[in-house]
Structure formats: structure tokens, C-alpha cells
């Protein structure tokens, strides 16, 4: 039995990296996803086609393949030298954008078109109406689906071990190969992911409850 006190802190320090990956990926994904959702609903035919292709691409190719493709292939080819962490965040972000676009799209659709019609009837331009009237409501409706995306992201961050990013799983694997003990480290890592997932989902739920619009019954 190896002294666990030694390696637990090492694995725990990976949490910061994991959270960094998740925060970075979700942020990039948020921006891309929101823009694409708006494009898919309010955009023209070419925009819709491009977005559709993008979404298909990033949802039909395994994350593992995407990571390798970009790290070993795309970035070197285009002259950018990115370290594993940055590359991972970008790839996670691009991919998350595809998923988030569908979440937000669903939120906007379930809001219905009457809100925007009312805004435009008041003289607002289309973009003002979308920004001030549709989005605040649609984003809130999307929260439950979004917490799923958070949960997925926490777990997908583990896949970046394949590029050597020093997050939880990579560190766990180092510990396993160093101590020849697999059971406890891996379970510990799994438990960490569980806790992170649960805590984050709980936070999103609290925000969702707090921002409840009084009197409006959920249509979902």
C-alpha cells in the first residue's frame, strides 16, 4: 500500500487544469453556439447550410480524433504553434459550439416567434429585438439543457489526457504507472469528476431557479 497522502494532492492539483479546460471550452462554445443558433434561425440559406455542415462535422467525429487532427495536423500546417492545453481548449470550444448551438436553437424555438413580432411591432430593429427580448428568455429556457453540456464537458476534458494535458486523468495515469496501483487512483479520479459534475449542475440549477420569471409556467 503506497502512501496515498503523497499522490492525492498531485491529482487534486489537476482540478485547476480541468476547470480551465472546461471554462475555456464552454466560453468559446458559448460564443460560437449563440451566434450559430441565431444564424440558424434568423439567417439566410447559405448561413444555414454552413452552420449545418459545421454542426454535423463536429458532432460526427470523435473528440479523440479531433484532438489529434488539430494538434498534429491542422495547427502545425497553418503555422500556429499551440501547446496541448491551448489546442485542447480550442478543439473543445469548437466542438461545444456545435452542441450549444443546438441547445440555444431549441430554446429560441420553444420561445416561439410572438416575442420577436411584438418587439418589431414596437419599432425595434431585428437585431435589437433578438438581443433585448428573445435572447434573455431563450437563454434562460436553455439552462437545463446547458447544464447537460457542462456535465459532458467535465467528462470530455478527461480525453485531453491523450495530448498530455496535465489535468486530472493525465496525472492519475502518471500515479498509476509510478506506483503500480490502479484501483484507488482511478476511483479517486472518477469520484473527483463526479463531484465536479454534481456541483456544477447544482449551481446551474440554482441560477435557473433564481432567475425564474414570476408567474410564467414552464412550457417544457
Amino acid at each position, binding site marked *: 500500500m503506497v502512501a496515498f497522502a503523497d499522490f492525492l494532492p498531485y491529482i487534486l492539483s489537476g482540478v485547476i487544469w480541468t476547470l480551465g479546460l472546461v471554462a475555456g471550452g464552454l466560453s468559446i462554445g458559448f460564443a460560437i453556439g449563440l451566434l450559430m443558433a441565431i444564424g440558424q434561425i434568423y439567417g439566410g440559406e447559405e448561413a444555414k447550410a454552413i452552420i449545418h455542415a459545421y454542426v454535423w462535422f463536429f458532432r460526427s467525429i470523435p473528440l479523440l480524433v479531433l484532438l489529434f487532427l488539430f494538434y498534429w495536423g491542422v495547427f502545425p500546417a497553418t503555422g500556429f504553434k499551440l501547446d496541448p492545453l491551448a489546442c485542447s481548449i480550442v478543439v473543445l470550444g469548437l466542438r461545444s459550439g456545435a452542441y450549444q448551438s443546438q441547445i440555444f436553437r431549441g430554446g429560441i424555438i420553444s420561445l416561439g416567434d410572438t416575442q420577436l413580432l411584438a418587439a418589431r411591432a414596437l419599432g425595434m430593429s431585428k437585431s435589437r429585438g433578438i438581443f433585448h427580448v428573445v435572447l434573455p428568455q431563450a437563454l434562460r429556457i436553455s439552462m437545463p439543457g446547458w447544464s447537460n453540456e457542462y456535465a459532458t464537458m467535465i467528462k470530455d476534458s478527461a480525453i485531453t489526457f491523450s495530448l498530455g494535458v496535465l489535468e486530472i486523468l493525465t496525472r492519475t495515469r502518471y500515479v498509476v504507472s509510478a506506483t503500480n496501483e490502479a484501483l484507488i487512483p482511478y476511483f479517486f479520479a*472518477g469520484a473527483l469528476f463526479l463531484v465536479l459534475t454534481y456541483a456544477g449542475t447544482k449551481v446551474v440549477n440554482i441560477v435557473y431557479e433564481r432567475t425564474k420569471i414570476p408567474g410564467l409556467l414552464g412550457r417544457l
Partner: protein
Amino acid sequence: MIVVSVPIGTALAIVLGVARVYGNRAFSLAATCVVGVFRGFPAIVTLLIIFFALPEVGVYFSPYWSAVLGFVLVTGAYQSEYVRGCIQSVSAGQSLAARALGMTRPQEVIYVILPQALRAALPGISNEIIYLVLYSSLASYIGVQEMFGVARTFNSLNFRPIEIFFTAGLVYAAIATVCFVGFRLLERRVRIPGVEAAR
């Protein structure tokens, strides 16, 4: 490997879903724990535990069967959420009518509730199965002869990452798309007017 994991995984999902809704305290709690664990652990961690950690307590699985077991547990857990939700969304009156006719609980669940719940859950379940197709790439890290692993080996021999990984990606995408279309057709075939998913 996916072909084997999918049916078993879906069967497990149904068992878990039913257990959580209809089971007594013990079964329901056990099912909830199983689902919670395997949805909470990243799939890769589950695979690694089965293949590398279990041998420490004397349980050995070959790479292939480790992967199958791992994927069955993971997809079973995720799918059971859809199953559970759809079981609960079948109206209570169906259950009342079945029991008023004298059906036992198992008869009621098998012949009345599940046929309706599973049809409604099909879109969600097919989504999970497509995820599984993509996550199968992880199995290469526990030694399964799998497309991604092959691609990596190829790449280390002839360093042409863009072509190799792009091709691999497209093959996955093709399989996923075929599955997607296939499931849409399946949904249409089993569609019964009046039994639809409540979104």
C-alpha cells in the same frame, strides 16, 4: 464491438429504468446508484478501471470484453435516464386500466407501459447509441484493435497526420450518419399515432 454493446446496453437501460420507477426501495436505490456512478465517471475512466484496476482484485477481462462491459455500463446508465423519463410520462390512466382488467404488475409494465415508453424514448436512445459509436475510439487505450488506434499507429509510421486523422474522422462520421438515418427510419416504422415523445 459496438454491435455487441448496444443491445446489451439498451437492455440494461430498460432494466435500470424499470427498477428506478417500479422497484422497491432496495432495487430503486441500487439502480439509482449505478446510474449515478456510470453517468458521473468519464467513459474513459470506466474503461481504464475495468481493464487496469479490476485485475488488482482478481477480476480479469480481455481488452475486447473490458470495452464491451465498460460501454454497456456507460450507455446503459445514460439510456436509462431516457427510459425512466418516458415511463413516467406514460399517463397514469394506462396503468389504472391495465390493473382494472386484472393484469399483474409485470404484465402491466411489459404489455402496456413499456411499448409506449420505449417508442417515446427512441429518439433519446438513438442519440446515445450514436455517441457510443464515437466514444468507441477510447477503447484503443485499453488495447482494443480499433480504428483510432490503427490510425495512430499508421501516423507514427508514415507521418501524415492531416490525411490519416481526417480520413479516420470521416469514417466515424459516415458510420454515425448512417446510424442516424437508420434510427430516423426506425422511428417512422414503429410510429403509432397517439404515442409520441413529449418534448
